[in-house]
């Protein structure tokens, strides 16, 4: 609950305690679904779909090896006092721990590699077994030539752990910025795990199918670089399934939970909430039937045509909190951006309509579908107020109260080969009214962007925490170009 202690100024201590209590209840309820404890009435239903089953669980294979010079060492870094045996055991135990905690199959070569013949064997092993990545841990500064060779020849993403004492800045300055390579020069194994998470996230993209619900066609395509399948299905499919969806025990249970744990309920009636829960169960069934792991729907078009009695906003929040990407307005790259926060950062975000707050030079990020588990899917949720979808005054939309003072990251795939990544700090939650627009609406003071009007992109995904370096590293590993909003207002430059 550390985040609660960092919440500056937005809540009173009493409010905080209330939220902690309600958050714990929600967390318990959600955890039951994920952890498979005693089934609730909703789970005993024959057609209950565990949302955890919709998240992709790819097999991730990483080959690993230690690189060193022939022993015993004498002069040269890491030095004679570097305890090789102890370090080797330490690496093996860290790899074992990562294997268990991250669910990644990491196969460490039996013996450290210390000559050219060993290197050639490693290159051949990688070519033969085609792992998802190769992890090498350096035990001598003289191994960097081999790292270069691996980067050129192994044909798979390369993760390099160089413990302090095995590199100078000159060793890493070039190769650490090279596409397909991720270099850690540190004693922090958590940084290696970041690299392993990147590999896992990429595999999750590859194993995912996005259900693209719009238009009136059915087809399937694949996204460049990410390898994600996109199954387009006619928009009416959702309306038809929704119309048939009963008010089941699960629907009642979900609706009751939503209302019980809300900080406040403003507009939605019980009927609205039941419809919201029906949209949630409908979406789960449709995802399962289509063997899909994420969706993006032409929701505004459906509401505009009055095809459904409720926009799906509240249902999308529920899906996001289970790690299932649910995107708005059939914005496909908005959905892949949500998948990035879900798969790489382990937390939801929300795609936003960006607004310039010119009086305070802030960016306002607004939409109606924010997840609540801002600190992570396995963490307590943020408080929320139950509202309607502001543009239509229909249905349920959560106004999620984001923690003021915390850093945030904005990510957006412009296309499969480019990601906009920016960061900032949360200044306030914007109430509607007096403001118009969407229900979850936060003010952000941008880092490294002089003027908030110049923030790049639309439907950027806002997620909690500063993940700029991690997202950049992911992009580098997979040949995606990361870009940032301009630091200075572009029109101010070069005016005649």
């Amino acid at each position, binding site marked *: 609950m550390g985040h609660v202690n960092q919440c500056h100024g937005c809540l009173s201590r009493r409010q905080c305690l209330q939220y902690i209590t309600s958050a714990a209840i929600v967390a318990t309820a959600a955890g039951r679904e994920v952890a498979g404890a005693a089934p609730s009435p909703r789970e005993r239903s024959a057609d209950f779909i565990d949302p955890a089953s919709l998240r992709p669980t790819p097999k991730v294979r990483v080959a690993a090896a230690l690189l060193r010079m022939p022993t015993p060492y004498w002069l040269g870094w890491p030095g004679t006092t570097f305890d090789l045996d102890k370090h080797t055991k330490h690496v093996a135990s860290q790899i074992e721990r990562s294997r268990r905690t991250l669910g990644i199959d990491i196969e460490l070569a039996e013996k450290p590699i210390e000559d050219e013949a060993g290197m050639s064997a490693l290159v051949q092993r990688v070519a033969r077994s085609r792992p998802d990545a190769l992890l090498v841990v350096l035990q001598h500064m003289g191994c960097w030539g081999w790292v270069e060779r691996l980067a050129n020849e192994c044909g798979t993403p390369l993760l390099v752990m160089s413990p302090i004492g095995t590199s100078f800045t000159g060793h890493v300055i070039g190769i650490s910025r090279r596409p397909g390579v991720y270099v850690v020069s540190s004693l922090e194994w958590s940084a290696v795990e970041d690299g392993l998470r990147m590999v896992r996230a990429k595999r999750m993209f590859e194993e995912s199918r996005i259900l693209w619900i719009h238009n009136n*066609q*059915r*087809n*399937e*395509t*694949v*996204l*460049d*670089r990410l*390898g994600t*399948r*996109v*199954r*387009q299905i006619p928009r009416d499919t959702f309306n038809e399934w929704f119309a048939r969806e009963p008010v089941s025990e699960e629907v009642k249970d979900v609706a009751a939970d939503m209302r019980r744990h809300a900080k406040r309920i403003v507009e939605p009636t019980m009927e609205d909430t039941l419809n919201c829960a029906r949209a949630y169960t409908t979406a789960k069934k449709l995802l399962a039937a*289509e*063997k899909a792991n994420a969706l993006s729907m032409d929701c505004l078009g459906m509401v505009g045509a009055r095809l459904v009695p409720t926009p799906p906003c509240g249902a999308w929040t529920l899906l996001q909190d289970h790690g299932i990407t649910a995107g708005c307005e059939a914005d*496909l790259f908005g959905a892949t951006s949500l998948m990035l926060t879900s798969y790489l950062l382990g937390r939801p975000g929300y795609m936003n309509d960006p607004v310039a707050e010119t009086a305070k030079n802030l960016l306002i990020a607004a939409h109606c579908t924010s997840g609540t588990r801002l600190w992570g899917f396995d963490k307590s949720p943020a408080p929320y107020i139950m509202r309607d979808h502001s543009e239509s005054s229909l249905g349920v939309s959560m106004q999620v109260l984001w923690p003021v003072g915390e850093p945030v990251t904005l990510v957006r795939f412009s296309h*499969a*080969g480019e990601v906009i990544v920016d960061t900032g700090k949360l200044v306030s939650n914007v109430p509607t009214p007096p403001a118009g627009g969407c229900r979850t609406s936060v003010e952000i003071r941008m880092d490294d962007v002089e003027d908030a009007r*110049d923030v*790049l992109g639309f439907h950027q995904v806002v997620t909690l925490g500063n993940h700029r370096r991690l997202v950049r590293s992911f992009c580098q590993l997979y*040949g995606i170009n990361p870009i940032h909003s*301009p630091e200075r*207002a*572009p*029109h*101010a*430059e*070069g*005016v*005649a």
Partner: protein
Amino acid sequence: MKRIAVALLGVIVAAALPPRSNAQAGTPIPTPGLAASHVDSEGRLVEDWGALGIRLAGDGVHMGPAGVSAGDVAPGVPGVRIVRDGGAVTLDATVFRAPVWPSGLDILTVRLASKSDRDVPVRLTVELPASARVGKRLVSLGGRAIVGLPERPAPVRELREWGHWDEAADLPGWARPEGECDPAFRNIRAGLGGVPIAYRFAVEPGGAANVFLGFCESHWRAAGQRPVVCQVEGAPLQEIDPIARWGVHKPGAVLFAARDVNGDGRLDVAVLPKPGSPDVNPILNVIWLFPPGAAPSAEAVVSGRLNAVATRVVDVGGPGDQALEAAGRLQYDLVVAKSGTELTLLVACPGATVESPSRSAWTPETLRAAAARVMADWSAVASR
């Protein structure tokens, strides 16, 4: 070589065969719900923009009738196979629909093999609509990229005296120049998506010229939105921001003292986006080449009054503009061994545009793998 040339004259039909209607009967290429295309009885790939055919020529090479059949062209990848007897060689081509988002691409792979132990020189012609423009890695038709070319083998480049050599797009009538100026300022080429605009001009090896690049910005009203970087061979780089220099709708030109530094008899001219600029699409309106020595004034050049004394005036993106490569002709000189040689083309299917290979990570292997993955369970869902 002489005999090959004779054979070429005798066999190659200079103009591409006319496209036939999509409605014509043929062998359809299976797709996962995407718009269909087909292979006709002559073995041509028929798309919404026209037809693509393969013709072979060479000593002992001739074109037998095409055998067209449907079936798997790789494990789990349904497609169409085209087999032809080519005399001294065999032609075995396959085409399948790669489910590249958003509209797919047809992947045509042509395999040639010598029937004997003798290596056979073959000229392979890819027949395209006559107005197709062959660029570095893309063939375009009316601004649409219709064929993506592999890095290797390299096609036979039949180069004109001058022309564009890029993946940019013509946008005639885009600009609204104000004041006295050459009418060519109305037209532009644009490097959509950040691709460079590139031209080449034949000169004496090591020769020099005064090159003027003309710009007129008619979209942005504020400076700093679309600055570009101009690279003219032999001259220092220059950053140009047309709005900052001349204003909105105001034509202007910048002088470069160009020289054929590498002695290849060509002057290279390129306009690129300035790194980090908000609008990454570079534009260019006019190019003038004048003899080396004392350069005329930019004002006189912009007015068009000196066109008669220019060695070249290029109405960039206008009706007189041209590709460096001869239109509609895409040819490869191959030496075909018994073990065979292969050429893979990415072809725009209905509704699709081929993305620049420099911006795409797809390879023939990943395209096949994507097709196999999607088609594996497509039949089960297609009927829903």
